[in-house]
């Protein structure tokens, strides 16, 4: 507080001093400026005096003579003398007190001169009062003193020496001059008052100016301080602005990136209004994917890209949508060209331009779905293959042993029947045994067929001829209630397949059709050349695209539902009553066709019927002549030496007995090693080796390899119920290999032996 007071006192002293300084400076300025005005005024007065003298009294006359009037010379010289010093001082010593005193004297003397030059006109006397007023411009009362003295002295002196010229009388009072001086003093009084007030005002102005300057200084200091603060604040603001700009740029970059993410997202994206369902924004992928332009999209609703039948479900889905991100599932969408596609929808609610909206990501999964379906099919097929493989292994294992047993059973039964007559009491029983054995053999063949483990002997063939040759038997097979219709393509291409197996296929399909038409109907067998496209071949048939020969078997039966269709090729699946079907028919068909490189396609409608279509690859080449069983009842005989190699004793004994009965010389071996030894010990030629394929320690193929070098002319006939790939590859018998499958009949064996021996030697 004390410090502040001292500061104010100091500030007051400084202001007072500054006020004095300002007052003096102002006063001096006034003095100088008034000096300059008087310098000008006195010059003008001098000139005016000359003009007035020259105008009023240019010349003086004496009769007819004249000369320049004395007033003119007085105006020039005396006026110049009066004005000279004041003007000179006003110029050279402006502002000084002596200057203004001399100016005051000069001005009043100039007034006296002018009055004289104008003939003492009363009007000119106003010059005196005007001069006093002008002198008061100095705002220095002391200037009026010499001026007043000059006026008084003028009147006093002239009144004293020439009273008539001043007072109009020859003898005026000696105090008369005071009357004149009194009027001058009268004016001086007012001028003094005015000067005093003016000086007071000057002081006020000076003080106010000083105070104003002090305030200004304070204000300037404050301004400087505030300016510094503002500069600092400005700097902070600039920094903030820069940061804000950076943030805005970052935001713009971010917006740009997110816009880029939206617009260049490879997946179709759009924003739609939740209320009116109109598109609000779409990205390029949506435009490309759906075929609509951006403008077209913006004039559409999301209902427009859906099939009409899906719109109610979509509206229901939107009305019941939960908040937040959600998977809206898979929907069908329709492109501009009408193509339907499956899209997986993910949506997220947001506010877009102030409107309740949803961002939608549409992932076209049409191809993925197809791939999944294809994968599903492949998996099913793989499962089926694995299942078939397992069943095949089982069937193979069973068939190997079972066929050996059946070979013995059927062989011995056949031999018994050869020794018996139908009249014999045992004949019927042995015949029963043999028939049962044949049925068991057929069952075993079917097991191998559907598990694709049977041995095929494919050849180029005409499918029509198979159908035609089998047609009579088929007609008998299906009965009279069913009409058998044929639609065979005369220009049917060739296929390479095992004719016997294809007969089996056709019979199985016909039997199946027959069973589907218990009340009769029509069974149609058609053939034709078809070209399978990539899509159909791959998706529906799992075969390579290309040219195929089609065999179609159609019925007008009860048909099948989808569930049944899915299982009809499974082994042991049947819709027939127990005991009426083995469940292996269509499985066998499927196995044979697949093993032949073809495919089966089924189309069925419940109550309408079923169509099976078999597709077999079309091949080039001439038809090979079918080997027809001559049906000769007699055993074909020979005298050649046959090496019989069979590890199964019952089969070996039966075969040896058949061969001996046919006249052959038989060398018996119980396995490979034994056969090698027998062969070494036998000095003579061995014309043929009849050997089992699957044997312990040494297979039939290995045995052949070891014997062939020493006996290159020896022919080999393999026999087997199941080969285990020893002589077959993928079910197909090696080229040039003779083979007879177990179980075989006596006649079949004798015929096969004979054919093998008679066959030309391969070069």
């Amino acid at each position: 507080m004390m410090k502040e007071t001292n500061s104010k006192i100091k500030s007051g002293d400084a202001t007072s001093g500054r006020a004095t300084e300002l007052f003096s400076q102002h006063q001096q300025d006034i003095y100088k400026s008034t000096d300059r005005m008087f310098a000008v005024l006195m010059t003008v007065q001098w000139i005016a005096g000359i003009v007035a003298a020259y105008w009023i009294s240019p010349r003086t006359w004496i009769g007819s003579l004249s000369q320049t009037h004395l007033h003119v010379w007085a105006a020039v010289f005396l006026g110049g003398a009066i004005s000279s010093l004041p003007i000179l001082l006003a110029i050279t010593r402006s502002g000084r007190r002596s200057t203004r005193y001399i100016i005051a004297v000069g001005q009043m003397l100039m007034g006296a001169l002018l009055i004289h030059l104008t003939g003492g006109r009363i009007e000119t006397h106003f010059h005196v009062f005007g001069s006093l007023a002008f002198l008061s411009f100095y705002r220095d009362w002391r200037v009026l003193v010499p001026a007043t003295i000059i006026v008084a002295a003028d009147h006093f002196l002239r009144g004293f020496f020439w009273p008539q010229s001043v007072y109009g009388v020859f003898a005026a009072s000696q105090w008369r001059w005071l009357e004149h001086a009194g009027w001058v003093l009268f004016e001086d009084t007012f001028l003094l008052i005015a000067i005093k007030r003016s000086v007071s005002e000057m002081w006020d102005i000076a003080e106010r100016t000083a105070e104003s300057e002090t305030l200004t200084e304070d204000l300037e200091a404050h301004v400087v301080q505030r300016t510094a603060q503002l500069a600092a604040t400005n700097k902070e603001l600039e920094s903030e602005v820069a940061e804000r700009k950076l943030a805005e740029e970052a935001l713009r970059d971010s917006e740009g990136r997110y816009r880029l993410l939206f617009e260049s997202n490879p997946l179709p994206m759009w924003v739609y209004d939740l209320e009116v369902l109109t598109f609000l924004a779409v990205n390029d992928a949506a435009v490309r994917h759906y075929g609509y332009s951006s403008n077209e999209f913006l004039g559409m609703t999301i209902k427009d890209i859906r099939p009409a039948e899906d719109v109610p479900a979509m509206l229901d889905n939107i009305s019941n949508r939960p908040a937040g991100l959600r998977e809206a599932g898979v929907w069908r969408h329709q492109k501009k060209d009408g193509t339907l596609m499956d899209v997986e929808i993910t949506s997220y609610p947001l506010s877009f331009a102030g409107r309740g909206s949803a961002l939608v990501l549409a992932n076209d999964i049409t191809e993925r779905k197809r791939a999944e379906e294809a994968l599903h099919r492949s998996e099913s097929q793989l499962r089926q293959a694995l299942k078939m493989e397992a069943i095949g292994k089982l069937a193979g294992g069973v068939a190997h042993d079972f066929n050996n047993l059946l070979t013995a059973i059927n062989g011995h039964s056949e031999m018994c029947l050869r020794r018996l007559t139908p009249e014999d009491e045992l004949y019927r029983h042995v015949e029963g045994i043999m028939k049962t054995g044949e049925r068991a053999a057929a069952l075993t063949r079917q097991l191998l067929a559907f598990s694709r483990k049977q041995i095929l002997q494919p050849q180029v063939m005409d499918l029509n001829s198979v159908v035609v040759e089998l047609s009579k038997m088929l007609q008998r097979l299906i009965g009279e209630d069913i009409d058998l219709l044929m639609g065979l393509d005369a220009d049917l291409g060739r296929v390479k397949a095992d004719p016997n197996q294809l007969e089996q296929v056709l019979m199985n399909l016909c039997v199946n059709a027959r069973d589907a038409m218990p009340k009769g109907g029509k069974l149609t067998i058609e053939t034709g050349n078809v070209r399978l496209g990539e899509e159909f071949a791959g998706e529906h048939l799992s075969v390579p695209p290309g040219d195929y020969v089609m065999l179609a078997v159609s019925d007008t039966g009860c048909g099948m539902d989808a569930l049944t269709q899915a299982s009809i090729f499974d082994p042991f699946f049947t819709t027939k009553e127990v005991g009426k079907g083995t469940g292996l028919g269509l499985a066998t068909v499927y196995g044979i066709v697949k093993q032949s490189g073809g495919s089966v396609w089924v189309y069925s409608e419940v109550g309408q019927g079923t169509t099976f279509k078999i597709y077999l690859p079309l091949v080039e080449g001439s038809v090979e002549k079918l080997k027809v069983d001559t049906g000769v009842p007699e055993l074909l005989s020979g005298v050649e030496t046959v090496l019989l190699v069979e590890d199964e004793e019952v089969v070996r004994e039966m075969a040896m007995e058949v061969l001996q009965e046919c006249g052959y010389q038989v060398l018996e071996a119980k396995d490979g090693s034994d056969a090698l030894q027998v062969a070494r010990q036998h000095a003579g030629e061995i014309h043929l080796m009849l050997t089992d394929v699957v044997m312990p320690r040494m297979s039939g193929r290995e045995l052949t390899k070891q014997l062939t070098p020493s006996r290159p002319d020896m022919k080999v006939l393999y026999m087997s119920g199941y080969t285990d790939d020893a002589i077959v590859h993928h079910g197909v018998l090696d080229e040039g290999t003779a083979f007879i499958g177990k179980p075989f009949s006596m006649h079949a064996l004798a015929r096969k032996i004979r054919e093998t021996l008679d066959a030309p030697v391969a070069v």
Partner: protein
Amino acid sequence: MDSNFVPDCPDLMLPSRPRRKNARLVLLLSTVMWAALVATGLWWLWGYENAPGVGAISPSQWPSQSRIQLAPNGPTLVMLAHPHCPCTRASIGELARIMTHSQGEVRAYVLFTRPEGSPEDWEKTDLWHSAADIPGVTVVKDSEGVEARLFNAATSGQTVLYNTRGQLLFSGGITGSRGHFGDNAGQGSVIAILKSEVPGQTETSVFGCPLFNPQSECKVLNDEGNK
């Protein structure tokens, strides 16, 4: 402080004491000389202003040879004037004031002297017209100053006043000094006579230009009353 600031004591602000002293001395001497010169000039001018012209002994009886007719029913005032004399402007002005005061009780004539050989209308100056404009004043050309000589006038502005009987009532100038307007003894006396009052003076000095050339018959008097 402003570098132009000079306090109210300028003589003390000179750069050095000797120069300042010399300057003051020069200023003082200059002032004294100036004052003396001006005083002399003014004194001389005032002297000139108050120096009267040649006075006249006007005839005490109206000159019978005069072409001017004496007014039968009132005083007759005659002013003898030089048409180009600047000092006479004040006399004409004072005459106008007299005529204003007389209110038609006096017949006034202003006789403008026209020297011999003067150009035509030489006398028709502004003074002529000013005088002619005064009500009750008759302006008359006085060729070769015949009338002036009859009234013994030698200085412009000489004014004489006669009564109806031709007796001189006043003679002299009606201005206080040369070309000087304002109340004066001559003017006041004429007005007093016209008001039948006792005039202060019946004779006054005349301030004006000589009416005649120096070599003319009418000699210029150097002092009032001396021929």
